[in-house]
């Protein structure tokens, strides 16, 4: 467990926050993170976040599902347990389509959801530190990491938060893994 000193401003509206984030990026301030009660449109561009790769993972999981179902049924009905149903060929591809489709969706959905929680560092019973209880209600938070910064730099960040319209500025020490 590492301790982290955080300086953060709470904004009352997502549009004010978005402007502040854009300005902070222009000034090359090192933003620790932004916390909002709902997804704010344009935030990922403003923060310069790389596109999520979750969909690529989803495609891979889906393909694993497709292959598991199709190759599994192929092996079972041509090698392991060949049996004739209604005079159809052993390898009756059209009849395999529904299950192949279902397993594609199942694998992709489970795989992506599990990946989502793992990369987020989330899970049942996980207690990630939060900066303020109102962030999940109506406050929009812009946070800076204070550690390793001189008093003058911290004061500058504090001024920045106030100037860009933060209604409150606080400091908090959180434990970060």
């Amino acid at each position, binding site marked *: 467990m590492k301790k982290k000193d955080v300086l953060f401003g709470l904004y009352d509206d997502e549009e004010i926050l978005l402007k502040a984030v854009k300005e902070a990026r222009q000034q090359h301030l090192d933003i620790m*993170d*932004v*916390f*909002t*009660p*709902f*997804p*704010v449109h344009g*935030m*990922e561009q403003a*923060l310069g*976040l790389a596109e*999520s790769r*979750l*969909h690529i993972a*989803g495609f891979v999981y*889906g393909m694993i599902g497709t292959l598991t179902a199709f190759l599994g*049924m192929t092996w*079972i*009905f041509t090698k*392991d*347990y060949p049996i004739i*149903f*209604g005079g*159809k060929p052993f390898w*009756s591809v059209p*009849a*395999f389509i*529904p*299950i192949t*489709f*279902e*397993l594609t*969706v*199942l694998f*992709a*959905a*489970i795989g*992506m*959801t599990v990946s*989502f*929680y793992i*990369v*987020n*560092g*989330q*899970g*049942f*019973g*996980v*207690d*990630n*530190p*939060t900066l303020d*209880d*109102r*962030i*999940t*209600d*109506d406050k929009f938070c812009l946070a800076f990491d204070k550690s390793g910064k001189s008093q003058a730099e911290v004061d500058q960040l504090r001024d920045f938060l106030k100037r860009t319209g933060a209604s409150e500025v606080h400091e908090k020490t959180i434990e970060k893994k």
Partner: protein
Amino acid sequence: MSQPVSPIREPLITGHKTYHDITEDLVSPTEKTTVSWALATMASALLLAYGVFCLIWTFWVGIGSWNVNRTIGWGYDITNFVWWIGIGHAGTLISAILLLFRQKWRTGVNRAAEAMTIFAVMCAGLFPATHTGRPWFDFFMFPYPNTRGPLWVNFNSPLLWDLFAISTYFTVSLLFWYTGLVPDLATVRDRAKGLRRKIYGFFAMGWTGSAKHWQRFESLSLILAGLATPLVLSVHTIVSFDFATSVIPGWHTTIFPPYFVAGAIFSGFAMVQTLMTITRKLLKLEDYITIAHIESMNKVILLTGWIVGTAYLTELFIAWYSGYIYEMFAFYNRVFGPYYWAYIGMMGCNVLSPNIFWIKKFRRNVTITFFMSIFVNIGMWFERYVIIVSTLARDYLPSSWSYYWPSWVEIGIYLGTFGLFFTLYLIFVKVAPVVAVAEVKAILKTAGDQYVGVEAAKKAEAAASH
């Protein structure tokens, strides 16, 4: 507001809400217990208990306690299975397809509709599981390496496809619903103290609302929606294959998949209306589930009602046009046979009654909507009864013709599923925000009545002229 204000766009959030108001209104029902809620839950639990009793009776006495016979092997249970699974289609449709179509009105109802889906699928799953007669052997249906020789299930059978479709549908709906619920559980957590905070903290999975998490969250929601869209269409398609791949006249038709899917959406939206009209009243959510939401859903009911009606008429036409005597008889039997009353119920409730929604005044009337939603669900139940029972009652051999009427045990199990459904729904209403808090906040500035609609447009105009 710098954006232009459209007077024709109807607000979806009324009452000039702020972000904090939204949290307060939507989370506070989970923070207090009312007498009416407790009474309703007890009544549902009693009904559930009776259903459990009837299930135990079935297993104790055997399937002989049901009135199904050699001719009519599928009776109440499969009718109810198809009925419940149809109801279970609206949730994922609302959350997935309407998300892809960017329909903002979905945010008011998606959470409850998804919950409804999950509970309806649970009710549905009970019937085929019971129908096997020895549910403790139901695991035989899953393909797994076993000691019975290399013995596998029949992957060519629609009944097995159904098992895969429904278990996949249940799992994906559950993941979709719970993932959407996590940020709102965090909202509940952050308002709570003591033990309650710990419990909600456990289930909120450490959600912080970080920008990167929201980005991934949106990406995940979109792709799950993309996956769930074909899935929701596939599930009832595969249910219809249970019938369509058989060689029974009246079942063996290619129209079944689209017809079943439309019927499922039709009955699913009706059940959403039934629940929403009550929920919005009891939890005072009229500002979030507005008349605009109800009207949108009534439009969907009108459309799908007509699709279903067209399918009924097409079936009749094709039966005549085919020139195939057995097919003709199957449909003659449906309309004029021993179960003519079920056919009348189906046509009346599904085809005729939704036409009331051509009139805007009725579409926007909550009382009419409530009763119509019940009618539609009765009609859709009759539809399944007509398809299953009236078809089987008159098969190829007149010597084996029969009549079926459910026993008290079968009716009891059906009532029990209502108990299960409402008990789960009531518990859900009590423990989680029934409207998606974060999603409603996200559309506030494009759908709140201080930003869009006639009133807001007037204000914007007045401000501009100054």
